[in-house]
């Protein structure tokens, strides 16, 4: 699992995820993202799943965890480029009632 965090706006970041998101990877991701959020006062996160080849329910826990964290500062979370299998896991977990699934990055930047 690799993660690259890109600043999109003063309070918005894009998190490019790469590889497999399981329990092991989620622990590492959580720490990197939370460090960044706290340092840079982030309110909006766009997770880009384009290069994610695998995700299980630990990924759901990781996203909900960040959602709760941003809720404290009135923030929001969006996702783009979900593969069908990952989208199904999001759907089953009810994640789309908490976060938005965008068609592309442009839409995400406009609406998030």
């Amino acid at each position: 699992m690799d993660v690259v965090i890109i600043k999109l706006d003063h309070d918005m970041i894009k998190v490019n995820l790469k590889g497999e998101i399981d329990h092991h990877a989620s622990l590492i991701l959580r720490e990197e993202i939370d460090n960044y959020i706290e340092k840079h006062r982030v309110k909006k996160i766009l997770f880009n799943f384009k290069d994610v080849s695998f995700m299980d329910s630990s990924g759901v826990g990781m996203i909900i965890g960040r959602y709760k964290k941003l809720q404290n500062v009135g923030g929001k979370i969006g996702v783009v480029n979900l593969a069908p299998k990952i989208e199904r896991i999001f759907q089953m977990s009810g994640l789309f009632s908490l976060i938005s699934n965008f068609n592309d990055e442009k839409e995400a930047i406009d609406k998030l």
Partner: protein
Amino acid sequence: MTVLNEMQLDFVSKSENESFARVVVAAFASQLDPTLDELADIKTAVSEAVTNAIIHGYENTVGIIRISSKLYEDKVVITIQDWGKGIEDIEKARQPLWTSKPELERSGMGFTIMEDFMDELKVDSTPGEGTVVTMVKNINKGTVRQTT
């Protein structure tokens, strides 16, 4: 029904072994020539069961996890066993979104995903003794590749 092939693997409950376990089982099941979609389902279900053994069974202490698998003409049977804490109320544990460890950012979706992605799921558990999760995935093509 004839067993075409069989394997068993023991490893310790380290989170690094989650990816190892799902790759091994997927490689083994590949002998039945499953679709990529079927393989992805198997990987996800194995990952869920192994993660549960690590986090809930052994609660992040060191223990042995055993995976065994059998290939039949039209299905793969996978068993994941731990000798950890066990489950008090299996029916409750299997419910969507129920987790005993919300503080660890668990989503409570593991069993629900195993059930959805596989064709059969059986959970046997005894508190203080451990847990056995048995899953079946039907592989519709069902021909074992010839090895020469």
